[in-house]
């Protein structure tokens, strides 16, 4: 590279740096919401997002035009691959153990949600990722398959298994709500 191109390169680099800063400021919280729904843990969620953003930063000149989709894919795939490593626990630790509600309509509703939440956090990472994409991000089966790098049929079967597990794991209250279509 000749000397005359130096300032141009610095300017382009600074522009990309600014773009990255703006992207994180705009979308960081949304990404953190997804990560927290995937992990159920503050520290793990922050680590997951920072890792995905670091990978995005390392390839920013190439992926900046479609950065959010890239970071989302990293989030979901990193979470799933982390889970596959030997020695990982399948259960999720919860910072504060919620009290069980007593009798009453409102309390039953709260109890039901807590049971469902616990069951959700106990799902395998892949199945939870499918549910988070489908029900938090409102992604279609095809979009979910695209992000997770699998076939739409796999997404449908994972979602079906996850809902079946939730019905069983969360107990009778959830069973009374009925099954998935």
């Amino acid at each position, binding site marked *: 590279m000749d000397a005359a191109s130096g300032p141009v390169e610095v300017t382009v680099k600074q522009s990309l740096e600014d773009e990255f800063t703006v992207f*994180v400021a705009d979308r960081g919280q949304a990404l953190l*919401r997804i990560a927290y729904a995937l992990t159920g843990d503050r520290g793990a969620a922050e680590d997951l997002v*920072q890792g995905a953003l670091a990978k995005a930063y*390392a390839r920013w000149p190439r992926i900046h035009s479609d950065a959010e989709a890239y970071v989302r894919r990293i989030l979901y795939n990193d979470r799933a691959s982390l889970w596959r490593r030997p020695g990982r626990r399948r259960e999720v630790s919860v910072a504060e153990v919620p009290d069980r509600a007593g009798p009453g309509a409102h309390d039953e509703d709260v109890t039901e*949600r807590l049971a469902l939440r616990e069951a959700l956090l106990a799902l395998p990472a892949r199945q939870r990722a499918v*549910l*988070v994409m489908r029900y*938090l991000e409102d992604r279609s089966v095809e979009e979910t398959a695209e992000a997770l790098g699998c076939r739409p049929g796999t997404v449908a079967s994972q979602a079906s298994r996850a809902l079946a597990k939730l019905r069983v794991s969360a107990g009778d209250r959830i069973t009374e709500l*009925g099954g998935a279509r």
Partner: protein
Amino acid sequence: MSELENAVRTTVRDLADEAPPAHDLAAVARTRGRRIRRHRHAALGALAVVLVAATAMPYALLRRDPPAPVVDPAPAVSPVPSASAGALPDFSGDTPYQLPGGAVVTMLTKQVEVQEADGTIAPGDPGYVALDRTTGTYRQLDVTDPDLVPAPDGRTFAVMGLSGRVDVVDASGDRKARIDTRGSFTAYSGPQ
């Protein structure tokens, strides 16, 4: 949508609402991202050295003069051959760079340093210099992805993408084809 699905939707959104506020995500991501770049550049540099050595060594050895006839007593010889016997010519971007034996270098990586906003110098993205066979000169590619493999004719390059996809791009970075390697190698889109 069933009641169970509605309940799952509510639960997932309640859970997401409990996410902690984002603090310093960009700063931490930059630090970790630079580390990833450094590791990647180091790996690329090591790979380039190995490739050049593996390519040049056989030619350098073949060019050595044949050993002198053995007389009795046999003269002492060095057990380790030296590659410096076939000295490589200086690189010039104006002509194809030919290795001993006739092999031509089609692409080189070029490390650049950039100045950060705070004035510090940091490693930039790797640059690529490729041989343009039509002009016989080397030129800088408008492609920065580090996972780049040139085609034998030097006109297109394979870039590893996400989810098992491989993009075929030209020297301007324009995608010419996409190969989906998920499951099988039969899916292919792009000009034939």
